[in-house]
């Protein structure tokens, strides 16, 4: 009976150690903080990229309008020259 008790206590200790050892497979708090910081950096960069994309789209639109204005001016110039008899 005494022997069985020893075996049982040993088994329980071994199981407990194994379970506690199993817990250490998780990343540490420091590692988790690193991951959280990195994910925050990703979010921040995504926001910045979206803002820059919007700004560039606005610039592209403005340039297209200016280009249209230039073409219209050139066409006006050609028409006036033609009307003036190619002077």
């Amino acid at each position, binding site marked *: 009976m005494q022997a069985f008790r020893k075996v049982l206590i040993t088994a329980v200790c071994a199981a407990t150690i194994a379970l506690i050892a199993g817990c250490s497979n998780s990343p540490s708090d420091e590692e988790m903080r690193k991951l959280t910081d990195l994910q925050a950096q*990703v979010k921040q*960069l995504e926001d910045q990229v979206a803002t820059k994309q919007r700004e560039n789209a606005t*610039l592209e639109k403005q340039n297209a309008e200016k280009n249209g204005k230039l073409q219209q001016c050139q066409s006006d110039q050609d028409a006036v020259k033609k009307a003036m008899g190619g002077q």
Partner: protein
Amino acid sequence: MKTLIVSLSALVLVLALAQTLQAQEKMTKDEWQAQMTAATKQVADLTAQMAKLDSDRVALMAQSTKLDADVRACEDALYALLGVTREEAEAFEKELGDLEKRVDELQKMSDQELVGHRDELERIQTRLKELANHKMAKIPRMADRIRVLEDKVAALLASITKEKTYTVGTWARDRDCLWNIAKKKDIYNNAWLWPKIWQGNRDKIRDPDVIKPKWVLKIPEGKELSREEKTAANRYYRKKAAEPATGQ
């Protein structure tokens, strides 16, 4: 003894359960590593994308500056060609734009409301005639805008004076010429009265053989030609008779 076994079993069970729950809540080291790798890659990709966007922005800004300079140079050349200053050109465009807005507002009014704006319409009509002689009106685009406005104002004035008008259709579809218009039952029902339309619309019709689709022509009242209309018609017939045969 039995109590000890039960207690120890319970302890093991509790520990096992706690481990399972903890495992569900917390990620494993492998998962952490995978997320770190993915996030690091995302940061690298996004940083590269930012650099590309920054360089695109620089190029777009440079393009914008060049376009500004090109537009300015083109406008300067155009104004020099026309003999107007930039200020005159801008004032002309502004006035034309303001008139367009005003005429649009007037078009939304009922005939009854419009009657109270007859003087304004006549002033606009006079001003448009002046603008049509402006150097800026040598730009066909401007001349077209003035012509469209003149037509709108003429139509508005016609609607309040209850003067009859006719909007010219296309030759292909309506066979519209002054002769055919005058011949219509709801116009004069007499083709020979075509000079009345010509003389009533001298502001538009320079050559009675040429009328353009969408022109709104005034249809003057009367069942016979006046002395001036007859004279104009005779002058036209003589001119046509003097023209050499086209070899048909």
